[in-house]
Each structure stands twice: as C-alpha cells, then as structure tokens.
C-alpha cells in the first residue's frame, strides 16, 4: 500500500494555479487566436466582383426524375433506402420530390449543372445541415434528448455519422459492432485508447458497441448515457444484479452512479476501478469521523471502526468482507 504523509500544505498561489491550469489559459489563447484568424481571414478576402446579371426568379421544384438524369447512381441507391419513403408518402408533402426535400428546389441547378445552384447539406454549417434533417426527424422519439446532447451543442451534425443516400437499412449508419465502434473512435480516439487497457468492456472484441451505453442523440443523463427501464442508468441493462432496489443501499451507487468507483472504458486496475487498490477506492470517501451529524466538510461517508487494521493484508481489500458493496438485500454493512 502506498501511503505518504503530505509534506506541507500548498500555498494559495499553488492552489490558484491548480484551479486555473495552464491548459485552461492556453485554451483561451488558442480560442482567441482561432477566432482572430478566421475572422481576419474572412475579412481579408477581396471584395467580391460584381455578380453578373442573373435570373432573379426563384428556383422551382423539378422532381426526382430530373435529378436521376445526372445522378443515376445516387438515385438507384436511394430507391432501396428507407428515405425513399419520402418519395412515395403523400402526407409528408415531398412526393416525387425526395431529393429536393433536402437539397432544395433544383430547377436552376438542372439548367446550369453548377454546384453553386443547389444546396449541399454536407457543405452547410452543421446547424443548417441539421435543420434539413430535423425538418422531418425532429418530432421523433430518437431526438427527445437532443437538447442535452453534447453532439448537438458542439456542432456535430447528423451527416457526420449518417450517410443519407446509401442503400438499405444498414446503409444510413453503421450497425455492425466493429463499424459502430470505428465510427465513434474516429473522433473519440482518446476514449478508444482506454479500451486497449487490460481491464475494459469488450468493445475491441466486437461483443459490445459504444451505443450500448451511450445514445449519440443525447439523453437526460450526463455523457449521453443510455437509460434502462425508463429512468434507470443503462448499466443495469446488463448488470441487473446490481440495479436493486436494495433494502440496504450503498449511497454512491445511486447518488453518483457507477463511475464514482469505476472507469467504464478501461483501466489498468482490475475490475476497472479508479484506484490501484480497492482499499483506497473506499477509504478516500470513508474518512469522516463517526458522528450523528454531517461533518464540517459536509460530505457523506464515515471511517470504518478501529478493528480494520490496514497494516494487515486481510483488511486491505474491503470487498473481501463487504462483498455486496453495490447494495445488500440482507446486511446493513454489505457483508451478505
């Protein structure tokens, strides 16, 4: 066991530096620089030459068959796509005009064949691209957690993950476990690195996917965690034996969730714990003196009774005796 007496209390300057780490300050600088660069870049552009006189008549809808003339491969794939429903469903108002439901009216583009004359959602800014999708998809159960989604807040648009034209129900987004994980790992490379640690959930093996635990469209829970049985954390979907309710609950499990003690993506510590020995996981919280009221620091968690002699190995693994640490059906001290 690694314990050490703290040599000295830190000075207030040290504390301030810890509160505002240099990365935070660096980030602000980077943000400012990026902002300045982009704005300046935008301003440096020479004034656009006066546009040649163009037809001011607004573009009109021409129907998908016109689009097929040039984009036959996309059109053919689209016939087998779930999105093809837009082409045939009268109630949505885009019957025979599915292409233009996202790309906008195409008469000018059909005449000029210029990319500038048609809306390409892939090149729009993410919010505008999403509006094209959400015109139809907003009022669906999938998006009920959208306002909590960090993807939405951080401008990760629908087309970052979904391929709109592709053929077949599995074409719009990855469905096979390795492909789903690869798709997420393309941006979350740091998270994927955690799964290369020895103790982890079995994602690299293809037994699980990121979306088993996270809903990329957002949920009520932090980190877009999936829920089970309406409002229970999604961990209980597979770990039902730890879901309870227990007559004797262990407070952090329900109050702060599994991640109070576990690193769910992967850890060098057995059982994906947050510390190298289970004793430290427990004692870092169980360190208030026993008292009928809350201690001065206002936190829950009381020191174990004195017979817990941590100088002997048999007391260092708390879960050896407190084996029902997720909650007990029988015993108030989680022994049975």
């Amino acid at each position, binding site marked *: 066991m690694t314990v050490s007496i703290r040599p000295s209390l830190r000075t207030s300057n040290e504390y301030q530096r810890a509160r505002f780490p240099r990365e935070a300050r660096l980030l602000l600088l980077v943000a400012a620089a990026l902002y300045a660069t982009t704005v300046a870049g935008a301003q440096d552009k020479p004034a656009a030459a006066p546009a040649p006189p163009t037809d001011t008549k607004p573009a009109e809808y021409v129907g998908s068959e016109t689009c097929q003339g040039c984009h036959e491969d996309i059109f053919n794939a689209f016939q087998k796509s779930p999105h093809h429903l837009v082409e045939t469903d009268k109630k949505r108002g885009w019957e025979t005009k599915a292409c233009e439901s996202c790309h906008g009216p195409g008469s000018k583009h059909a005449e000029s064949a210029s990319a500038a004359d048609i809306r390409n959602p892939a090149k729009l800014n993410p*919010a505008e691209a999403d509006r094209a999708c959400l015109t139809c998809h907003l009022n669906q159960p999938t998006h009920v957690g959208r306002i909590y989604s960090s993807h939405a807040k951080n401008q990760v648009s629908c087309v970052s993950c979904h391929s709109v034209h592709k053929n077949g129900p599995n074409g719009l987004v990855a469905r096979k476990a390795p492909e789903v994980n690869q798709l997420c790992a393309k941006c979350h490379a740091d998270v994927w690195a955690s799964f290369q640690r020895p103790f982890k959930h079995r994602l690299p093996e293809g037994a699980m996917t990121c979306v088993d635990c996270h809903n990329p469209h957002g949920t009520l829970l932090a980190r877009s965690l999936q829920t089970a049985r309406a409002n229970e954390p999604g961990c209980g979907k597979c770990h039902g034996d730890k879901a309870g309710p227990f*007559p004797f609950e262990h407070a952090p499990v*329900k109050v702060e969730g599994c991640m109070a003690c576990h690193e769910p993506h992967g850890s060098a510590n057995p059982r994906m714990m947050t510390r*190298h020995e289970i004793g430290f996981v427990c004692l870092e919280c169980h360190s208030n003196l026993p008292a009928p009221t*809350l201690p001065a620091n206002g936190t829950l968690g009381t020191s174990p009774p004195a017979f817990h002699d941590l100088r002997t190995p048999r007391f260092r693994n708390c879960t050896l005796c407190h084996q029902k640490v997720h909650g007990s059906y029988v015993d108030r001290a989680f022994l049975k």
Partner: protein
Amino acid sequence: MRYLLALLWIVPALAQQPPDTPPKPADQAAQAPAKTDDKAAQAPAKTDAKAESPAPATEQWVTGSVDLGYRWMTDIRGSFPQYRSVVNLGEGPKLFGLDFTITDPKKRLFDRLDARAYGWGGDPYSTARVDARKLGIYDFTFDYRNIAYFNAVPSFANPLAPAGFNEQAFDIHRRTMNIALDLLPGKRFTPYLAFDRNAGYGHGIDTFLNDENEEFAVPTLLRDSTANYRGGVHVAYNRFHVTLEQGGTTFKDDDQTQFAGTNFGDRTTAFQGQKLVLNSLQQAYGIRGHSIYSKVLVTASPFSKLDIYGQFLYSDPKTDVRYADSATGKFVNPDTLSAFGAQQSLATGSAVAPHTTGSVGFELRPFRRLRIIESWMTDRYHDTGFGLFNQVLQTTPPTNNITTLAPIQVVNYNQEEINALFDVTSKITLRGGYRHVWGDATVRAGTLSQTGDEVSGELRRNVGLAGLTVRPSQKLSVNLDYEAASSDRVYFRTSLNDYHRARVRAKYQVASALVVQANFQVLNNQNPSPDIRYDFESRRNSLAVFWTPAGSKRVSVMAEYDRSTLRSNISFLLPPFLTPTVSAYRDNAHTATSAVDLALVRGAKLTAGGSFFISSGSRPSRYYQPLMRLSVPFGKHITSNTEWQYYGFGEQFFLFEGFRTHVFMTGLRITR
C-alpha cells in the same frame, strides 16, 4: 441458442434457391401500376424503357459471407487465471463470423433481412443478430449475446491468503436477448413491442463471515435474471410527436453456496486460543423483484423558430428478500469470547423505490444566427427498505440476535441549464451557457453500520459553459469545449467540486489522402476543505493519422497515439488509529494502436498492427497485442485468412500475475 445458429445457417441455404422464374416485364409493370403510371405521365419515354428491361436473372438476392476456421494457442506462460480474466480466448474450431443479407425481390415477408453471428464455437463473446424489415409494415430486431466473464486477480484481494486467492472470483456467462417489433414504421401511429432478458449463470468464490475475526472463502453458484416487457406507441405528426410507453420488469436472484470439508479461512493465527474452522455451509438467497414503469416523451415545433422537448419517466421497482444460511465448525462469539459450533441465520426484507424523472426544454431561434437552448430536469429517487435479520448462535445457552431495520435513501437531483449558440460567421460558432445543479441526498450514514441517524448531504453547483467551433475550410475543423464549476456543497469527498474541464478536437485534411486528428482534454478538480484537500488532475492527449494514398489501393495506414496522465492526492484517515494520511494515486500511460494494410499480388492483403499499452505510476503495467493477418483469395468467393496475435501482460509490482501467449487462427471466408 444452437437452434438459432442452425436457423441462421438454414435460412440462407434455402434462400439460395433461385426465384421461380424471372419476372416478365408485364408482370413487373402489373406489380407497381400506380407508380409506373405516375412516372409515365412525367417521363413516358424513360419509364417505358425501364419497363422493357426486366431484372437480370443473375441478380443476387442473397449476399453474405461466412468465416470458418480454427484457433491454436501456444502454452500460456505465467498466470492462467489472469489470462482468463483479460483475454479468455480458447482453442478449437470456430465460426468466426456469419453475415448475410436477403433482399426479397417479391417483397413477400420482408424487403430485406440481415443476419449476423460472430464468435461461435466456445468463444467468450458470441453474438447473433437478425434485422428484418418490410417498408412501412414492420421493423423487427433480434439481438443475442453470450459474454463470458472470468475474474480472478489475486492481487486485488489478499495475496497472502493461505488457501491461494480468496477474493470474490467468478466464472460466469451473461446472456442478453433483445427482441423489438415496430409496426407501421414511418406512419403516424407506430405501435411497438419489445422484450429484453438478461441472465447470469456460473460459479464463483464468495466469502462467508461469521464475524470480523475470520473470513472463509467458499464456492458459490451465481444465477440471476432480469426480464423486461414493454410496449407503446409513437404518434408522429409534422409539428409534434408523442411516445407513450408502459413496461414491466421481473427480477430474480438465486445465488447459492454449499460447502462441506475443512476450511481454515484466511486467518493464519489462532483467535483467543482457538483455531477457527468452517466444516459445512448452506447459504441461499431468494430475491424476487418486479417493477412497472411509464414513459411519456414529447417533442413539438409549434413555430418554425421554436422546438419544445419534454419527458416524464416513472418507475416503481420493488424487491422481496428471502435469505437463509446454516454453518457448522468452530467459531467464536466476539461479544462473549465463547466458542460455539453452529449457527443459523434467517432474513427477510423488502425495498420499494419509486423513481420519478421529468424534464422540459426548448430551443429558440429568435434570429438566424442565434439559438437559445434552455432545459430543466428533476430526478427523484426514494428507496424505503425493511430488513429483519435473525441469527442464532449455538452457544450454551443459545444466543439469538434479532435485528430489525428500516433504512431509507432519498435522492433529489435538479438541474437547470441555458446555452446560447451564436454563428459569428458561417464558419464560426460561439457557445456560452450556465448550468445550476442542486439537490439533496438523505442516507443513514452516521456510522458505517447504518444504525445512526439519518443525515442529509446537499449539492449546490454553478457551472459556466463555453464552446467554440471553427471550420475555416472543408479541410479543417476545430472544436473547443470548456466548463468551469464552483460548488458550495457536494455529496462525497471525491465528488466534482471546483473543477475545470476543457476539451479540444481538431481535424485537418493535410492532403487528399492524409488526415490528421488531435484531441486534448483536461479535468482539474479541487476540494480545498482542510480535511479533504482533494487535488485531482487528468489529461489526455491523442494524435491520429489516417493515410490512404490512391484510395487505399496499395497501402493504408491508421496510427493513433494517446498519452494520458492522472494525478490524485486526497487526505484520508488511515485505520486503525485514523491517522491523517494522503492517498496518492498516479497513472501515466502511453497507448499506441496501428493498422497497416498492404495490398499484395493477386488480391492478397497483409495487415499488421495491434495495440501497445504501457503505464507507470501506482500500478505500473503493460499490455501488448501485436497482430498480423494475411488474406489470400482463391477464386472469386473464397479467401483464406491467417492471423497471428500475441498477448503479453505484465505488472511491475505483481510479477506473478503476468502472462503471455501466441494465438494463431486460420480459416476460410466464403462469400456470395
């Protein structure tokens, strides 16, 4: 599940019978007269041309592949239990993968059916999935997984235990099955039904405690299952959507322990002159649980500039408890220090935990460049338990201990958040926001045994939010996400208190074939309270390179490197004298993953790569998984795959837990 696998085999085999006769042009036209007519009205020449060309008779409506092979392994050097805890692959013939798609040209029972199965033949991760769909009629999904969990890591228990390891080791299989059926997908009213089941079964090591003086590790049978039934309806119109769902859950846990023999436990010295021993034990849990839950989800767009979101979720799980144990041996009553030879325990109890969650929010777009997102949520969980525990010690005279407890746990969590997103230009979006979190939790925590008074912890947190997204060109995107929080009250000593969290993601397409991506994130959490002094900081930096020259025709390279550091210091009281001490934890890790694909002659492909992890700090460890794979095609439909992978694991402080082994796999991939 063998039957399922057989079915997965049989369906494509039957499906390989060709369609009776190629449809005649007239038949085709008859099958979709309305559509043809409509199209004919708009583009008659084209439609006629299409009608005259029937579907080619050779068009494959079953496509897919099957991967069969054999896996060999060299002897596992080092700790076999640790190998099983980390890798757990075995030898023998395997069905590595089965993946096929049936597209029914006549669209009889389905338009398309996708079936997949991976890792069958004794592998620790066996999965199967079937998706069937008929457009506008139904969507059906069946998903099955059988995951083996083995865990026996001596260093995580008491490595000095005389009988070897004495932790709660286990060797179980956890099987999950999910079935879902959506009717009339895409229509206004979409009813749906679903069934989920999760069950664990296997053996493990449990600990029997008579008192704090001795623990006896005993084998146990673990078995639990949870079944979840749900049904509902989605009602979707252009301007609003409502989902109503009602569900129910049943749960049972029937863990059992039986032991007969001589078990001296993990105490190496006599207690009060007595050598304690366990001679027999019968222990049984009979836990039954059930729950109902309701879910209402709403989204609406009453105006073009306003979207509204709402959820109401309610569940009411209940648990009933039956427990009994009976043990014989030589034990000591710590209260009287007298020896006794047998004891029995009976327990009963129950718990109810109504849980209500509600949220409401909106996105308002008052101007073209401005979006305001506001949300509010509350989560209320009230667990009321009851437990009666009766223990009889066969002392002289017998000692009867009866304990009755009615513990409670109440958790109320509330959160309000507002964000404003402003598109400065079409390439820059700024985000600023504020989150207020507050709540309370009441638990019996006056003492560890929960017999003390109830105490209530509080949570008060103010969080500032900021973000920036910059996309100066199609080739470059940068995203910054930052939040800083100050808390007046937190529940636990290690909770997030005064913290800063920052994250940057940048992606740059250097050339058409080269993409570089970098991630950086830091979390700094401080709790300066004099008896806590929690100082936590974790950082992660990663760099990924994707190089795909000439569309990956010859070579493609994916390489990622991740550097993570974690520093944690916190004061705690070290038993038995409650000495103020600092718990110092460090974890500094390097992780590298790579995959290089090389196209060889005649369609052969060589893949080399793998992952490498090495860490220093409180638990220095390394884990290597290099990999090479050679794929050689034989004709159009058969490919030979040969793979080598090395698994090497080691820990500096626990050398006895290291292992290493080479795993070889060879097989055929047959495609259609």
